[in-house]
């Protein structure tokens, strides 16, 4: 017992010492200190720290603003934490700025403490058309830009160039039908007939379907209210406008080539190891995939393959944005100064080099340094040109039960392939399931 007490005492003492270490210095008088919650880890975390440091040493010093960037876990953790504060009603504890991804929009957009970024920009006379339209629309709700796009990315086709050369394939596929032909030519088997290399690996989820459904006929909406950007979605449109059936028909043909692996996890790893010759992934994975592949083979990138020749919409902008909150500290203008700095042409260029997220500011693209950079790194050029050719109105979906919908797509498509169901019945079943989630949500919202 004595020993236990002694141990407890020791721990308490140690705690005291550590408490002291945990304390911060008091902020200087007259300086507005901003807190920015972000989810940038690894490379992105370092890049965020360097943006903040540069701001604090230059503009921040001049205008008496100091930014404190706090890593708050994964994107979903930042949201959980913010929601906890909102529910406890203690808006004073909100950060001045927070980085969220698209899945947070539904929970954040109507919060009274949210300061729409467009309001802050207008007070400063900032011209919003300096930003890429597609990026701006990706955070526009009811015709108002509620946040500042920051870490923006699109989807891209990655291919094993060495395997392409060996199989005598000169150009990467541009449609799903071509993808099937190319994939078939890339399959390798061992003596026993087991496949050692698949041509392509994917099971479409929300991420891919936003593009494969949305790009059809120039632009197709997946749900009403323009994919939820004008209000809560009440029903899906992919069954009525036929885009789902069209996509599923082509997907079934693609799968019938036997060259597609139904891989749902670690797709990038399978690609890097050479087990799969083509994948689709975010442009923000460029740096990572390159270092994973190392010198095993040459990596090529190309436009995300379109569903068919009529699917001309291109790709949408995904990723995350910075949101501003009113935490009664009156830091709104200071927060805007920082947001403006972080999305300035120069900072967006550095951010792009460090992480692979594409610059959201138009002027970055005309910088000499940027031109030189895409000259030297043609892969980045592909990603950026693909975006420039896309319809900016093609946008991600803001839906409730996003998690369930993600798996509904995945398992629905898997079931179609494995049980040989028709595209029509699969589309109908998916629409029914997802509409059910919408109804449930609207009922809870009392609409």
């Amino acid at each position, binding site marked *: 017992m004595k020993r236990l007490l002694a141990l407890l005492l020791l721990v308490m003492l140690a*705690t005291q010492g*550590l408490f002291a*270490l945990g304390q911060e210095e008091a902020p200087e008088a007259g300086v507005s200190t901003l807190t920015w919650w972000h989810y940038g880890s690894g*490379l992105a975390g370092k890049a965020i720290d360097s943006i903040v440091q540069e701001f604090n040493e230059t503009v921040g010093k001049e205008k008496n603003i100091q930014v404190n960037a706090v*890593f708050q876990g994964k994107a979903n953790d930042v949201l959980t934490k913010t929601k906890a504060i909102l529910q*406890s009603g203690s808006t004073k504890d909100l950060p001045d700025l927070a980085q969220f991804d698209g899945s947070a929009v539904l929970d954040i957009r109507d919060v009274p403490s949210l300061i729409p970024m467009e309001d802050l920009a207008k007070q400063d006379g900032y011209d919003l058309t300096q930003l890429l339209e597609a990026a701006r629309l990706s955070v526009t709700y009811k015709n108002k830009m509620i946040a500042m796009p920051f870490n923006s990315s699109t989807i891209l086709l990655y291919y094993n160039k060495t395997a392409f050369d060996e199989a005598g394939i000169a150009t990467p596929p541009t449609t799903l039908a071509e993808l099937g032909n190319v994939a078939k030519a890339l399959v390798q088997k061992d003596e026993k007939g087991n496949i050692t290399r698949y041509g392509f690996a994917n099971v479409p989820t929300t991420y891919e379907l936003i593009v494969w459904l949305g790009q059809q006929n120039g632009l197709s909406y997946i749900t009403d209210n323009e994919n939820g950007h004008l209000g809560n979605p009440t029903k899906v449109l992919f069954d009525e406008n036929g885009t789902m059936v069209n996509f599923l028909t082509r997907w079934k043909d693609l799968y019938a080539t036997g060259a597609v692996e139904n891989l749902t996890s670690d797709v990038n790893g399978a690609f890097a190891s050479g087990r799969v010759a083509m994948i689709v992934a975010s442009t923000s994975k460029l740096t*990572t995939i390159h270092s994973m592949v190392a010198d095993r083979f040459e990596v090529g990138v190309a436009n995300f393959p379109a569903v068919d020749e009529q699917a001309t919409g291109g790709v949408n902008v995904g990723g995350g944005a910075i949101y501003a909150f009113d935490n009664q500290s009156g830091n709104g203008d200071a927060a805007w100064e920082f947001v403006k700095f972080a999305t300035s042409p120069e900072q967006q260029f550095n951010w792009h080099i460090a992480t692979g997220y594409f610059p959201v500011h138009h002027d970055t693209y005309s910088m000499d340094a940027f031109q030189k950079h895409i000259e030297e790194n043609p892969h980045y050029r592909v990603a950026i040109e693909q975006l420039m050719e896309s319809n900016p109105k093609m946008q991600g979906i803001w839906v409730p039960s996003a998690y369930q919908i993600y798996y509904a797509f995945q398992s629905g498509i898997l079931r179609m392939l494995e049980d040989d169901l028709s595209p029509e019945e699969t589309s109908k079943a998916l629409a029914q399931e997802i509409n059910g989630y919408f109804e449930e949500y609207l009922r809870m919202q009392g609409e």
Partner: protein
Amino acid sequence: MRFIKASIATLFSLVVIFPIIYTISASFFTYADFTSIPAKLLPSSFYLENYVRAFAETSLARFLANSFVTATLGMLLRMGISIGAAYAFTFFTFKGRDVLFFVVIATMLLPSDALILANYSTIRTLGLTDTYLGIISTKLLSPTHIFMLRQYFKTMSREYREAALIEGCSDARFITTLLLPISKAVVITLGIHSFSNIFNDYLWPLLVTNKEGMRTVQVGLTMLGFSENLDYGPQFAAIALLMIPIVIAFIIMHSPIQNSVSSRFAGR
């Protein structure tokens, strides 16, 4: 026969020990090692960069210290409360005892995820965010522990305590000199469980801390950015470091647990 037994035991222990060995091995993997085909079991070289990066890119030492303090403190307090409560529920007779016990047990039905927002609110109102107390206070009451200890204590004859009290022994002394030594196996097992439970917690410590200096190691691990960047090396290095103390604790504790379990079986 002996040989067969030994081989079966070896086989099972290999299954258990494999993840540990693989983690240590993978902590020396280079980027290319992780993605090679066929998958590698051993690193291609003695590559220490992952460890260097794990420490250089985060305040890993500080996170480790925070985790050890909160897990140790939380474990001791939780065990103290659980032992005290289980003792009262077993040996004392007072009005409403069974109702009270039932209420404590009923809290097992509440999933901790459902309470997280309410708990956050409370901790914030108390001004305990960014403190060790904030991190551990919601972990202190464990109905499972109380229930298990009570079941264990009930197997003991009440006459022991009556005899001890007649001899002038206090409750505290009875607990420390008789009850705990007899219940060593269950107490140590629950203690280790408490420790690793608090040590492994992710969401709660993330929620109640904002200062980097107060972050625990589980939060620190995500800072290494493994999932976004598929950069597993530093992650594995950090995990390997984390395992060492826990593995040592198990090695030290395993013989008292084993002895008391086997002696109880032998006694029956």
